[in-house]
């Protein structure tokens, strides 16, 4: 039976931006949207903007919208809503109290569990990762983690969704739906799972993530897919990856403004097209490596972005999805540990609603089961820290202290029996004696791999009803037939 044990009501608090600083970033953002503009390369999106009085340049597809329009639109966004799951017991309320971890996408390679070799990802990987994540209490929802590259591009995203629903009862999120045609099919599939269009609005079992195209631009197909999803009541998020000194200014504050302008303008568009649609803020900002221009996915700027972005999402009163397990490491190693720990701590301490990226390496390109299990350990450590320190009569333990007295011990105290299981027990930290380690010098990552194999072999997720499975498959086939006839997605 799958379960979820999330971070809830963290007791530590972190203020990385003051209210005044948030207001300045907001003011700068509105200035950018109004005076510089954001590119929306979709006729449909431009129509919506124009109908609401924004200035639209059809040639460059750049929209300049007054701040009041953006602010009014964002006020329509619901502050609280659930991410629903196939199993309603696993629904995730995005209520500003919880921090849920999920996978992230979209990787293109997998470190094979058996051979240890890196290879191209396939649909089978999507299935197997979903099955393992279904068993992990730290993983609250799935992002399509790797690309099903053995399926045709036109229907690939839908194969991936069906694969996860077949193998898990948890919520599913995807960033791979990037055309209106795919989005319509994805909505149809989600309606089948939820039990109808109204039920899907009430309990969205699928949420959609789109990436902006930094700096200050959106992707046309993504916008059209997002509009279809928003109209059907699926939660839609836009993620900025504006990176210091390349796709954003070199300063963290400047890159926050650019990223914010991208996300906020896209969310406003959703609200203009479908008032009241559930939307969320998403970000995985970083600083580039100054030598090669690469997305680094780690370092102090990332950790600050993680905490600062939540201050912005809170200001707009929408949930946040943060790319926190975003390490740039090539294998599960020191770098992966330090990057994912610090980013996850920062993003969790400010109560980011969703954390993305467990299991992926090298800037979300390579899937590793070892990393998945160790990321869950990081999440568990942070969860334990954020519970803080309880101070009351029982936890002050005066009776036990009196009983043990000077020079006594607490091993056999009843108080210890009552509380010792609250202490953190690691699964992937090596606390053996030196001698024991010398005799068997294996590593936590070896244990993680072993555990992943056990879960893969032993975990049996609640199967999807065969009728429903056939229905999903039928929707995918219909899209493939349509794609054969007209390779381009029909206009929304």
């Amino acid at each position, binding site marked *: 039976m799958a379960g979820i044990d999330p971070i809830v009501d963290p007791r530590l608090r972190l203020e990385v931006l003051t209210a005044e600083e948030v207001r300045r970033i907001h003011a700068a953002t509105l200035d950018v949207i109004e005076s510089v503009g954001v590119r929306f*390369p979709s006729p449909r999106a431009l129509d919506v903007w124009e109908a609401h009085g924004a200035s639209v340049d059809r040639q460059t597809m750049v929209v300049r919208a007054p701040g009041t329009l953006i602010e009014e639109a964002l006020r329509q966004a619901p502050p609280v809503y659930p991410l629903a799951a196939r199993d309603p017991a696993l629904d995730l309320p995005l209520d500003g109290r919880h921090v849920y971890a999920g996978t992230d996408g*979209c990787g*293109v*390679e997998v470190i094979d569990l058996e051979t240890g070799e890196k*290879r*191209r990802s396939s649909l089978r990987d999507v299935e197997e990762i979903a099955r393992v994540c279904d068993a992990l209490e730290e993983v609250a929802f799935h992002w399509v983690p790797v*690309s099903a*590259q053995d399926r045709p*591009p036109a229907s*690939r995203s839908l194969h991936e969704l069906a694969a996860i629903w077949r193998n898990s009862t948890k919520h599913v999120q995807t960033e*791979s739906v*990037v055309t209106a045609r795919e989005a319509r099919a994805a909505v149809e599939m989600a309606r089948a799972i939820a039990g109808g269009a109204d039920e899907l609005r009430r309990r969205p079992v699928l949420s959609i993530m789109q990436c902006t*195209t930094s700096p200050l631009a959106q*992707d*046309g197909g993504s916008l059209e897919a997002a509009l279809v999803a928003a109209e059907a009541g699926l939660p839609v998020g836009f993620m900025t990856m504006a990176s210091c*000194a*390349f*796709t954003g200014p*070199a300063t963290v504050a400047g890159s926050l403004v650019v990223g914010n302008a991208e996300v906020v303008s896209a969310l406003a568009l959703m609200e203009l097209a479908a008032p009241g649609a559930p939307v969320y803020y998403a970000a995985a900002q970083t600083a*580039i490596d*100054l*030598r*090669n*221009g*690469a*997305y680094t996915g780690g370092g102090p700027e990332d950790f600050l972005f993680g905490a600062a972005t939540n201050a912005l999402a809170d200001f707009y009163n929408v949930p946040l999805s943060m790319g926190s397990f975003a390490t740039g490491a090539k294998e599960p190693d020191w770098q992966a540990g330090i990057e994912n720990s610090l980013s996850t701590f920062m993003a969790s301490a400010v109560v980011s609603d969703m954390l993305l990226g467990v299991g992926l390496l090298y*800037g979300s*390109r390579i899937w590793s089961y070892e990393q998945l299990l160790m990321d869950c350990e990081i999440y568990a450590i942070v969860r334990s820290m954020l519970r803080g320190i309880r101070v009351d009569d029982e936890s002050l333990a005066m009776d036990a202290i009196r009983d043990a007295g000077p020079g006594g011990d607490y091993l056999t105290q009843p108080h210890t029996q009552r509380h010792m299981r609250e202490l953190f027990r690691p699964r992937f930290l090596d606390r053996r004696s030196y001698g024991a380690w010398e005799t068997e010098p294996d590593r936590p990552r070896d244990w993680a791999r072993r555990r992943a194999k056990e879960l893969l072999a032993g975990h049996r997720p609640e199967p999807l009803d065969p009728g429903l499975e056939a229905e999903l498959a039928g929707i995918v086939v219909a899209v493939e037939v349509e794609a054969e006839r007209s390779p381009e997605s029909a206009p929304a």
Partner: protein
Amino acid sequence: MTSELFAAMRQSIVEGDADRAEELAARALGEGMDPLAAIDEGYVPGLRHVGDHFAIGEMFLPEMMLAARAMKRAVAVLEPEMARRASRRRVLGRVVLGTVHGDIHEIGKNLVGMMLSASGFEVHDLGVDVPFERFVEKAREVDADIVGVSALLTTTMVGQRSVVEALRDAGLRPRVKVMVGGAPVTRGWAEEIGADGYSEDAVGAVNLARQLVGA
């Protein structure tokens, strides 16, 4: 004095000052200097300086880009005079560059284009969302040595294979080399689709291009 002018040209590249580089190019023409000399003895040493300092970790990508842009602007000023004298700058090779059909990501591709052109390649940038056949047409038209195909999405990456096949069907392979790049692109993918090479960053792309043309 010529040597002073050369030194100033070199400095304009090192500082990435495109306006200054342009202005010095105009002055050189006014003084009747051979444009090729201006490039080879004025600007190129500046570029070399930046490259050397980049290699030892004292200068960074943004400075490299500024230098490349300054170089490009200076050469643009000198080009009409070069054409008039029928002198040609030695070109390392001709590269046709574009982001594949269905994909609009251009920043990485533009970076590669700028660096290639600063390094002495003649670059024909087709932009983004480029149909497969367009790569073929352009490669034929300019007698390209290399076609560079960029893709950022796993779904559009498959188009890189289509470009390789289109070039093959047009009989341009293996003479025209193909290099591929973009976030999801791996060595394995490049090998599988029969591309001649791939790079994960712009500096690597320049090295690869040099290798492919034997420069």
